[in-house]
């Protein structure tokens, strides 16, 4: 064993497939370089498992640079691990000490069923987006930026909310498994921009309705989501979602168009 390598004990959730019973299995992770990312550490452990003829630990990942939102797991009881505003792929092993025990579990929510080991199905998020997280008016090719003035404050709030990568850490960290932060980020993002105005209230109504249909919990404002979010999305977005929802519910009316709509 070379100097400086970490020797760790992993407690990993293993589950062979959807709806199968799973359990925590212990693995040693030896001679782990502090320079490795958390996922590289898992790769190393998996190489060992494959070499010895065992099934590798399945985990989700894609960009490995903190922008795609694929990689979330619970690490020692915190979504994406102990480092603030950092995805699991950007978490480095220097955060840990030699001899540490590390608990690694999938996101837990009724709406995020486990597919295998640490991989969960986040299709519920896609369906919330499909319910209204878009702008349907065809806007053509981009106009000159100055032809559509947007105040700095609105632009900032929209951009901050747009940073959401859909990783699901907010759901995972929430004691209620609520998707409020994710849904609110999308509603805030589009609701602050002129292009988002025509559908602003209908969007709030439809996305909240879908969020409930997916059996996520409600918001108690524990604040855990904001703390877990790798992109620093603020619970202020939830204030915005609720405000838009109130206006939407107060003004809701039937869609009357019988033909020619769109």
């Amino acid at each position, binding site marked *: 064993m070379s100097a400086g390598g970490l020797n760790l004990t992993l407690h990993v959730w293993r589950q062979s497939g959807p709806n199968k019973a799973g359990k925590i299995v212990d693995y040693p992770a030896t001679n782990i370089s502090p320079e490795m990312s958390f996922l590289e550490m898992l790769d190393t452990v998996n190489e060992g498992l494959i070499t010895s003829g065992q099934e590798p630990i399945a985990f989700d990942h894609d960009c490995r640079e903190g922008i795609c939102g694929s990689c979330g797991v619970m690490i020692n009881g915190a979504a994406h691990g102990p480092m603030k505003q950092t995805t699991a792929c950007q978490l480095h092993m220097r955060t840990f000490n030699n001899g540490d025990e590390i608990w690694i579990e999938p996101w837990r929510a*009724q709406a995020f069923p486990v597919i295998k080991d640490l991989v969960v199905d986040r299709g519920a998020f896609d369906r919330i987006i499909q319910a209204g997280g878009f702008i349907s008016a065809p806007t053509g090719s981009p106009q000159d930026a100055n032809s559509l003035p947007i105040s700095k404050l609105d632009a900032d709030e929209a951009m901050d909310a747009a940073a959401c990568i859909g990783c699901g850490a907010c759901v995972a960290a929430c004691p209620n498994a609520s998707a409020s932060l994710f849904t609110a980020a999308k509603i805030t993002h589009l609701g602050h921009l002129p292009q988002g105005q025509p559908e602003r209230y209908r969007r709030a109504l439809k996305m909240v309705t879908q969020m409930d249909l997916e059996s996520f919990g409600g918001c108690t404002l*524990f604040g855990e989501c904001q703390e877990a979010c790798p992109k620093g999305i603020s619970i202020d977005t939830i204030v915005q979602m609720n405000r838009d929802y109130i206006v939407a519910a107060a003004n809701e009316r039937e869609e009357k168009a019988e033909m020619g709509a769109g």
Partner: protein
Amino acid sequence: MGRLGKFWDSSVGKKIVMGATGVILVGFLIIHMAGNLQLFLGAERFNAYSKLLKHDIIELTWIVRLTLLVSVVFHAVAAYQLTMRNKAARPEPYAKRVPQVSTYASQTMRYGGVYLLLFIVYHIGHFTTGTFHPAYSEVGTFGNVMVGFSTWPIVLFYLGAMGFLSLHLYHGIWAAFRTLGLARPSGDPLKRQIALVLAIVVAGGFSLVPLAVKLGLVH
């Protein structure tokens, strides 16, 4: 389903009902607490206040009572239904989950709420209807309070309720502004000074009465 039904059925709508009814209850508590402190001004003044509420403006008193009853019922039913929904949203628990920022207050809203519900029932039976009071007098409210707080178990039950109330308010007042969409964006949305001050003032103000009576500071 009608619009109101849809609103009540949604997790956001139900939470908004909780926030709105919670604010009504907080408003009442502030006035109720200030009224109670008149006990320190003597028996005559306190009984006169009681007569005002129970006789002179009894119609208004009934309007307030009904508003509070409706508020508590909606608040508690929404709390129960949301709690059930939230539990169902995570059927499989984590082997290890470490809360990062949730306050003790936010984690005890449900237990505190149940305690407060029991307390409200007991409290009305104690001083309003006299059902649970050993020597209730319709006109001697000051005496009712003196006798009512003459034993430690009852004083402690009241103080326990005020402990839970302070926690409930510390989280609830801060949360309600957010649930109702009223809070402005902030650099540190978890900060909550107004809620802290109100929680201490309201729960502390209420607690003075049973404490002072039991310790023999009121004559």
